[in-house]
Every structure is written in structure tokens, then in C-alpha cells.
């Protein structure tokens, strides 16, 4: 399976930034500082369980509750 990491990252950014470009950039930087670089993942990126677990925790921290399929 592939692409779940990107979908989770996109969900966090969408929920937090609500399409505001300034906040999108800042949220991406916050993720980079947490060890997840959004630019490194695309629809073909493998569903690495370690990264997905990390993202799950980050999503909770950001108050993002939507489950990603």
C-alpha cells in the first residue's frame, strides 16, 4: 500500500491551515521540526508503519481526529 503518509500530512495541513498559504508554510515547518518533511512524501510513498505511527501522534497533538484510510 502507498500514499497514506501523504494523505495524513495533507489532512493535518488542511485542518490546521484552512488553505491560508502563510499558515500552510508554517505548519509544514512545524512538521519538519518534528522529523517529518512533507516534501519527501508523495502518492507513491510506501506506507511505512513507523512514520504513520509518528504522524498519528502528531495529528492528535494538532487536534486532527479524522481517520485516514
Amino acid at each position: 500500500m502507498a500514499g497514506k503518509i501523504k494523505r495524513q500530512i495533507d489532512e493535518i495541513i488542511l485542518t490546521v491551515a484552512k488553505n491560508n498559504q502563510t499558515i500552510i508554510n508554517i505548519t509544514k515547518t512545524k512538521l519538519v521540526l518534528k522529523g517529518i518533511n512533507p516534501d519527501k512524501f508523495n502518492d507513491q510513498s510506501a506506507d511505512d508503519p513507523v512514520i504513520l505511527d509518528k504522524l498519528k501522534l502528531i495529528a492528535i497533538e494538532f487536534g486532527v481526529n479524522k481517520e485516514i484510510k
Partner: protein
Amino acid sequence: MGIKIAYSTNKNIDGAVKEVKDQINIPDPRLVIFFSSSNFNQDEIAKGIKKSFKNADVIGCSSSGEIVSGKMLNNSVVLMAFDKEAVNDVKVEVIKDLKNSPDPQTALDSFERYYKTPVSELDFTKYFGIILIDGLSGCEEKLMEQIGTKTNISFIGGSAGDDLKFKSTYVNANGTSYTNAAVLVLIKSNVKFDILKTQSFCQLDKRFTATKVNEGQREILQLDGENAIDIYSKAIGSTNETASSKFMSFPLGVMAGDEPFVRSPQQFSEHGIKFFCNVAEGTELTLLQSTDIVKDTQSDLDKKINEFGEPSGLINFNCILRTLELQNKNQTEAYGNIFRNIPTIGFSTYGEEYIGHINQTSVMILFK
């Protein structure tokens, strides 16, 4: 009116307080921010400044060198006062017992009650935060990360210093000084503001992944699966024995696009490299090389002023490692001169705060 600055190099606290008060010709400031050398008794100077500006919210911290328009100072106090034309409203919170509980939630809840709006919904173009933290607490990352997940408001600031004694640093709020604490202020501004983050490094073509870290100790144990000391020393063309003499010239950067968030090595430890800032496991790091601080700061500030316009005030949170480099190169006068025409205060910090905790950086807030 709007924003006024003052400074004093008087070593007597009462004299210094009187001198800065006399320079502020705002009848009733709403907010006062000051930075003072750790050689002043921090309880006494906090009380003295608050007594001089009774109706204002007053915050500050101890420093390791101060900055005022045109000058880099030592053993001084620098102060900025904002009247109600500049600042609409202010709410100050103190997080005590920081090392045991680096949690900003109580402060953020207080901001929500005060402004009657969830912090997640506050307008980031109208509100900004200032954060001053005990610079020896080691809690900056935890605090900044948590603040960053709760709000889109920018909190910028610095880690308090103690003139390189590394014994105790202090923050203060409304006349009381604290150690092992952080002061958070959420400000509703009446004037436009903007943030400038500048650091003087170029990227080298050497990248590593932090594959094993000890986040609590700000330590990287392995880079690319190998001993971090070996990998770093080789990358900078040095030996494990001599590499530490080049730490300031070759820090690592967490890259957000082309923007580095600098992590400065502090020392080689038994098992790895200790930094002044932690790195999350799995983070990709780029080797950086230092460039000219004065030239780069002038250039970045000029660019910002071209976009933003002439500022009526500027606060500069400038890393102590930058100050030491400026001193080593006899460039402190040139650096101070960059701000000679802008009402500026600032201090040499033990760490800078913007989005996260960073090193070897200057974070500035400019007010229109």
C-alpha cells in the same frame, strides 16, 4: 507616540531605572519590555521597572549582552515601551516549575478566557506572542512544540542569559522575577508587525539522517546509522580530536525548503554529539558553513524593510554564539550600526524561539 526605547549603562539599579524612565516620554505605556544584564539583581530591577511603569504590563529577562539602536552593550538595561496606539491589549502569563511541567496549556486557557476566543482561532495578523524562557531550563523545544500545535499565532522570543556564567537565568513579569520559568505574553496589536528570521550560513552538499538520538539530552548518537562523531568530523574535514574547534563554523541545519533551522553542536559526549537544541529521530540534516553575519543581517533586514516599510520599532533576539563571533571578528560596532536608524532593543540569547527552538539565529519582530 507609539513605541519608544531607552537604555542605561548605569551600574546602580536605582540610577539605571531612573535613567530609562526619564527617556520614555509616553505618559501611560500599556506594555513595557526590558532586557537587563544578569549583573543586576534581577528581583530589584524587575521591581524597579514595574514601579516606574505602574499601569503597564511589564515583562523582561536577564541577558548576556544587550542591543539598542546603533550599539551592542554589556552590563546595561534596554527597554521598549508601547502606548495604546501601538498595543490594543496585553495578557501576561507565567509558567512556573518549568523543568517538571513544561506545559503551556494553563497559559493558553487563560489567553482564551481573556480574549474570549479559542487560541486556535485568533487572527495571526492581529495577535502575536512574546516568549521569554529560563535559558538553562532545557525546556524550550517542548514548550514551543506544544504552543505550535495549539495556535497559529507566532510566538517569538529568546532564552534568557546570564553573561556566560551559566549559573542561573531569570525571566520576570509585572515586578516579580522567576527562574525555572517562562513568561508568555499574548498581544493584540494596533500596528502591523512582521517577523524576520536570519542566520548566516550557506548549505554544503552534505546531508545526513539522525538515525539515533537522545532527545531529552539534545544528543545525536548516530548519523546515517554510524557514530555521529565520526560522520560529523569527517564531513567537516577534521579529526574527532580537533572537530570541536569548528563547531561554530559548521552547525547542522534542519531544512524547511531553503530555510535552515540551525542546530549548533555544543560538545562531543561519550556516545555522540550534544547540541544546544534537540533533533527529532529521522530528521534529515544539512551541513552548514558560516558566512558574514553583518553583511547577511543587513541584506535580510533591507529586504524585509523593502516589503514592510520603515519600522517604528524592532526587537532583536540575537544568539549569544553570533555575538561571540561578532566579538571575535571585531564586528560588534558594525552589527549595532545596522539598527542605528530603527528604534531597537534586543539581547544576546541562549536560544531563539520562532516556530521552534533554534540556535545561531537572530529572530526579530518589526512594528510599523
